[in-house]
């Protein structure tokens, strides 16, 4: 488990990360969301041991990360702009990484390269931007580390490749308990990959929840009440996040399971009610609006 406790980091007068505390459990895909400048990369760099926190602690499996090879051996960091040695081929990068990560899976690497149509002995500087990103991710996956930090690494990947990487993540999680931590400014990019999402804003954590919990515990219901009394009766019982009215049609976003919601609406006299599916985006909008933030401006761009 990665434990980030009360971590702060400032660059001169600019506070990039301000007293952030997050826990990242094993065998999940953790999505770190936030706008540009929210502190995602800084937090990820600190967690990878690249930067030293000004205060607070970061431990990976109870080991402090900064300048600690034992802890860092469990982490591979894929930065937003992948770095490769000048004139290197995937083979050269593999050779170097084998020295750094003894569990580097060479056979698997060769297989993945093939399936992504990346040539083993071609100079990386002749690769396209997307190919470089794929290679960086594959190197990270094959390094055999428990944690894989990806900083905006999915930007620029086409949907097929994203799906490919996603299935590799699933396989690696299943086989050896890989825990990918993916930072992105775009919620839509993470929606189909992440299990848990942390939302960073202005250096602090706004929210950190399992997606399932989020999805299961929030419902959107459209209904038309038979009378105002029924409406009042229901509104007293529900944990309402948001309400919209269009004529006699009410749309509620409420907390609670689907079953509880059905039971509550079954108890009042409605002409009609329907539980509608919520996208992750909508869940986030609802959750953060309560906290007074306009999520659309924050992460939808």
């Amino acid at each position, binding site marked *: 488990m990665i434990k980030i406790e009360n971590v702060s980091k400032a*660059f*001169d007068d600019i506070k990039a990360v301000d007293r952030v505390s997050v826990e990242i459990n094993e065998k999940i895909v953790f999505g770190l969301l936030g706008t540009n400048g929210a502190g995602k990369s800084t937090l990820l*760099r600190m967690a*990878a*041991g*690249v*930067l*030293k926190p000004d205060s607070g602690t970061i431990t990976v499996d109870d080991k402090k990360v900064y*300048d600690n*090879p*034992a802890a*860092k*051996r469990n*982490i*591979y*960091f894929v*930065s*937003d*702009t*992948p*770095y490769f040695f000048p004139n290197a081929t995937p083979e050269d990068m593999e050779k170097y990484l084998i020295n*750094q*990560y003894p569990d580097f899976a060479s056979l698997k690497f060769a297989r993945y390269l093939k399936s992504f149509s990346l040539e083993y002995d071609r100079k990386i500087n002749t690769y396209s931007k997307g190919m470089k990103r794929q290679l960086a991710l594959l190197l990270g996956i094959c390094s055999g580390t428990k944690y894989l930090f990806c900083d905006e690494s999915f930007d620029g990947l086409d949907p097929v490749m994203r799906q490919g990487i996603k299935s590799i993540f699933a396989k690696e999680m299943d086989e050896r308990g890989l825990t990918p931590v993916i930072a992105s400014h775009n919620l839509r990019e993470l929606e189909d990959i992440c299990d848990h999402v942390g939302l960073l804003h202005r250096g602090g954590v706004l929210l950190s929840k399992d997606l399932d919990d989020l999805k299961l515990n929030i419902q959107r219901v459209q209904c038309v009440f038979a009378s105002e009394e029924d409406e009042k009766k229901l509104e007293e019982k529900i944990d309402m996040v948001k309400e919209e009215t269009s004529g006699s049609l009410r749309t509620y976003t409420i907390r609670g399971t689907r079953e509880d919601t059905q039971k509550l609406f079954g108890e009042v006299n409605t002409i009609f009610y329907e539980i509608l599916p919520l996208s992750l985006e909508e869940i986030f909008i609802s959750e953060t609006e309560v906290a007074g933030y306009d999520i659309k401006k924050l992460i939808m761009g």
Partner: protein
Amino acid sequence: MKLDFYESMPQKKSSRFFVIWFNGIVMFVLTYVIGMLLGFAVLTVSGYGDLYTMNEALRDLGSVMLYYLGVYHLFILSMMITGTVFAGICAFAVLSSYEAIIRLMISAFKGIFFRYNYTLNEFLVPVVSPYGLFIRVISETDRTNGDPSKYLMMLGVFDLALLLVSLLVYMKRPREKAGRTLVFKWMAEPLKILMAVPAVTAAGLITAQTMNANGLLNVRNMVLISVIILIASIIVCALIQGVFELDIRQAFKKKLQWIVCTVLALVIFFGFKQDILGIDRYVPDPSEVASAVFAPEGYDGLWGGRIGADLKYMDMVDFYRENMYLTDAESICELARLSMEKCDEAWDNANDDPDTFYQSDESSMFSQAILLYRMKNGRLIARELSIPVKDDKAAELVDKIMSTQEFVRGYYSVEVYDADTAISQTQTMHLEARYTDGVHDRRLDRDELIELIGMYKKDMETFSYKERIDLLPAGYIRYSISTEDSRFYGPMQEESLVVYPCMRNCIKYINDKGYSLDDFSLYDEAEAVVITNPHYDEQNEYMKEEGLDYLPEELQERFVKTREYNGTDLKELEAFLYPGDMGMYRWDGGKDFDVSYEVQIVYRRGGEKAKRYGDFNYYYFVKGEVPENVVKDLAL
């Protein structure tokens, strides 16, 4: 991205530092060794490669390696404290040259404001610098009895210290500071001041130097220098700010920087001018002096550095440092004090004006001497003093210092005491020796030279400074050593020993051998003697009165008086005339030529002297011994 990649790897920062450090060393060593082996291969093919050469090359590899490490570590440190390659290169240039610049400036300040300053060459060589230490290693290696091990050790310690500091800075260096000019913000202001102050002070120094060269360095102009220092502060601070922060708008807004720089520069400038630390007139307590050097510049015709018996050139100070150990510190310190007192008095009388001073009679009573005090604490203090040799008390002290075997053995160590070693090498070299007055020669063979030098040594046992003051040389023992190769560009070693009439053993040996120079007769060689008195003093006085820069052609006859003497006049004049060479520079202010009379000896046509010297040769009268008839003949 490169940093992200490397810093995220499971490696200790220190390991990463040493891996990169080691790569740099391997690259250098490989290149050096390959070059060395190629060079050795070429030498071997050419027939010059031997084990000795290889051994020397390998030994040099050690010292070159230590030097390389110093430069390499300095560069690493420069890169560690800065965040960009450009800033790193600038920092490297500053770190490499800072101490040398400071030393140069101190030396320049002393040169302008200190009267008795003598800057040792080694003072200009930095100590906290791989370049400086390597220069010291090389000069020690080149010296005959040099021992570079001390400096090699210092270089090693310096390398190690720099490495540790670089490592410490690397460990403390926040990774995110890459891209900034300076990694540690707190360094910025002190560094700017440290860079600006020497530059600002230099502006004052250059102004002062220019004024000094034109005789304008007076109190009134000090105000002007202060204003120049202030203006320089503003400009330099603006430039540094511009380069550091790339912020031209802020360039002229750093008022505190200007004030600090101006104040510091003024303190340094006027500190030197007023000699607030009393450096210039410092005379150590004799009890703190372990030994000293007293080197009268040009005494007995010996100037500057020397070529030792090993045929290697030695700088003057190095020569005396190695050979002279005077223990009478009491007399030396007293002479130093007295000399400075008399010299200050003379300058006061000349109102500190160099022209007035050097044209005055007072200036002729001084002769220059280098003084080195070897302090018991290991320090070496150097001064160049003007010794009032004609002052009775000073002359007493000089006699006390110089009429000692400590002085004689140090001062004449090469010419007299190492002569045997030098001459013994000439079995395979060419030796030319003669006893001469500059015009007439007596050739000496190797054995005669060795015997004569033996006599010379015997006479030096009773060396007396005072005794020689009133004597003109009787002649010179001159010898030169050359190899086959050196004949093209001159002898490897050339020495000239003055023989005074008081040197009984030498004179006896010369007379016994029949080598006396008195047997030569000017009357037999010369056809005429042409004596000229240009009356320069009167010329100058006239020009001054008339406001002339030079004497017009038509007035030459009025002042320049010439007379030719022939026949029996020659016989009378012969006793008063001496070849030009016999009138060497008299450091002791002793018996000297009267240079207001120019004497040309016109040789007989076809005679031996005419063949050797051409038509004529220069001779002189001794001061106060010009025959009355000549004075009368050439009077205005």
